[in-house]
């Protein structure tokens, strides 16, 4: 029941996004200006008009746009003269690699930090964890990237400065993209853990003489993980959009960089495609998270 309802709303969201994308692209002016050279004739314009379907009313154009998108035809890039989908698929692995490694890093580090700060409340561990979290939340990612490059690549020469390659290339971009979300998730988990550790069921677990590590890592963590879990979708989304900035800083060949190039060259079909692909990934993740949450929390399973 929940799943069906969620699927429906995901579908509506995607429709809404496609509409936003379509409207924005039509508001951007006459796409023919960008596609044709200065020397094009009026006939060329007419021809293109027909080919792009611009002579039809807007709703029909939107219908065509949707139907094409469903078939995987996102149009052709103005700059590269290649199908948009091909360009995106080329760059997708790069972004997924980065987002994936960042996601793993975020989950591991935030669980570690969140649990540690809650367990060692009122000690230096909590203070240190809080400092890491609040600084991580406040640092501008693009600037952090630059500082990391300056320190670890330019000054110390330990890590490569830019580009994609082995795992060494991943370290700095991962750190950069993870910083903000890591901090946010740590804080959430820390307060959820703190709350769980003060709950009555923890006292009752103590009555049963459950060993302390088990109280923390089983009884509390399974409850505490539910709150931040709802944010996992948002964080994955942030990682995707964060990739635009981080890929720019590190010259990382992913969709983010592609998007920025499309912005700079005003390559609308490409931009449209990128936004749509991002949106699909976004909505898909949100859906997965919701379903998983419903599975994890017995109280909302019905």
């Amino acid at each position, binding site marked *: 029941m929940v799943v069906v309802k969620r699927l429906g709303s995901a579908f509506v969201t995607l429709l809404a996004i496609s509409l936003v994308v379509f409207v*924005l692209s039509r508001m951007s002016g006459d796409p023919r200006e960008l596609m044709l050279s200065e020397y094009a004739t009026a006939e060329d314009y007419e021809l293109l008009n027909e080919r792009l379907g611009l002579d039809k009313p807007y709703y029909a154009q939107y219908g065509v746009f949707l139907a094409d998108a469903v078939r995987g035809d996102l149009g052709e890039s103005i700059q590269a003269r290649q199908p948009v989908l091909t360009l995106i698929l080329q760059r997708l692995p790069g972004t997924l690699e980065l987002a994936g490694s960042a996601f793993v890093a975020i989950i591991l580090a935030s669980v570690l930090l969140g649990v540690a700060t809650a367990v060692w409340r009122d000690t230096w561990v909590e203070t240190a964890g809080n400092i890491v979290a609040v600084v991580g939340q406040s640092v501008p990612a693009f600037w952090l990237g630059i500082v990391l490059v300056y320190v670890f690549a330019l000054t110390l020469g330990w890590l490569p400065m830019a580009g994609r390659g082995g795992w060494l290339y991943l370290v700095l971009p991962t750190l950069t993209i993870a910083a903000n979300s890591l901090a946010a998730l740590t804080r959430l988990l820390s307060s959820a853990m703190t709350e769980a550790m003060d709950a009555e069921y923890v006292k009752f677990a103590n009555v049963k003489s459950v060993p302390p590590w088990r109280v923390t890592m089983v009884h509390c963590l399974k409850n505490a993980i539910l709150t931040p879990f709802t944010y996992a979708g948002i964080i994955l989304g942030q990682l995707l959009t964060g990739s635009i900035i981080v890929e720019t800083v590190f010259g990382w060949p992913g969709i983010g960089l592609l998007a920025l190039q499309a912005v700079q060259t005003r390559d609308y079909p490409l931009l449209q495609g990128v936004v749509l692909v991002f949106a699909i990934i976004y909505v898909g993740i949100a859906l997965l998270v919701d379903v998983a949450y419903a599975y994890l929390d017995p109280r909302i399973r019905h």
Partner: protein
Amino acid sequence: MQTTKTAPESTAPDLPAAPAVSLATRLRRALRGAPLPAVAFLALVLGVALLADLIVPHDPLTGDLRAYSLPPAWKAGGSVSYFLGTDLLGRDILSRIIMGARISLIVAAASIALGGVLGTVLGLLAGHFGGWIDEVIMRLVDTQLSLPSLLVALVALVVFGSSFTVLVILIGVWLWPNYARIVRGETLRIRRYDYISLARIAGCSTWRILFVHELPGIYNTLIVMATLQAGWVILLEGSLSYLGVGVPPPTPSWGSMIAEGRGDLASAWWISMFPGLAMLATVLSLNLLGDWLRRTLDPKQVNQ
């Protein structure tokens, strides 16, 4: 129970009014545990931003080409006149940071005012009336939250051209769903209190219930949110400016300053470094202040 309430509940003795407390004591009590360095730094940033025109040592927009790429004063070759050095066009970095502070704060204040008012009103209505009004508003919120916002903003800024107004509207529209969601949740929480039912029983109008009983209950939440979001908006404006679609040049913005220095990191690290530090310190202070406000104004504590 004693064990769940750490502080014993305030039991007023049957005495006339509480003893008079001096203003200084009240202030000291109110500020207990406040992050004073953060507050002081924010006051400094605010003062500098207000007086920017009067205190900049150099013209932030036009540079002295003879003095390009000067290192900060304490480095070899630095000049005391250009305390934090100059950029590639010979513009004084300190002066540009000062002007940038003004831009950051104005963008933050304006867009939060826009998004905050919009979100608060819609959230209040959704929470108070429920039903289809709630349904429609919350669908809008969900849809917008599942948009890849940064990308949409990029597209919109390209389409409409970047200007200060477009930037503020865009960020404001970006923010409202957060406010709407939280205000709705808070309104629903407050509506469960008996004093709302009792207000209806007393014959209060809907208007009075909304604005006398429900809205004041969420002021604290709004203050905390606005503080925390101010930091976030500054980061956001920085990102957009860094990507070249934020505040249009030549107006100095911290984000675009960082971007300008990116290519010359090896030779002139200070061009990117100092605006970034300014940004970090400002956002950090806002976050510390917001956390403290959250702890002291926590509505749960107000109500218990």
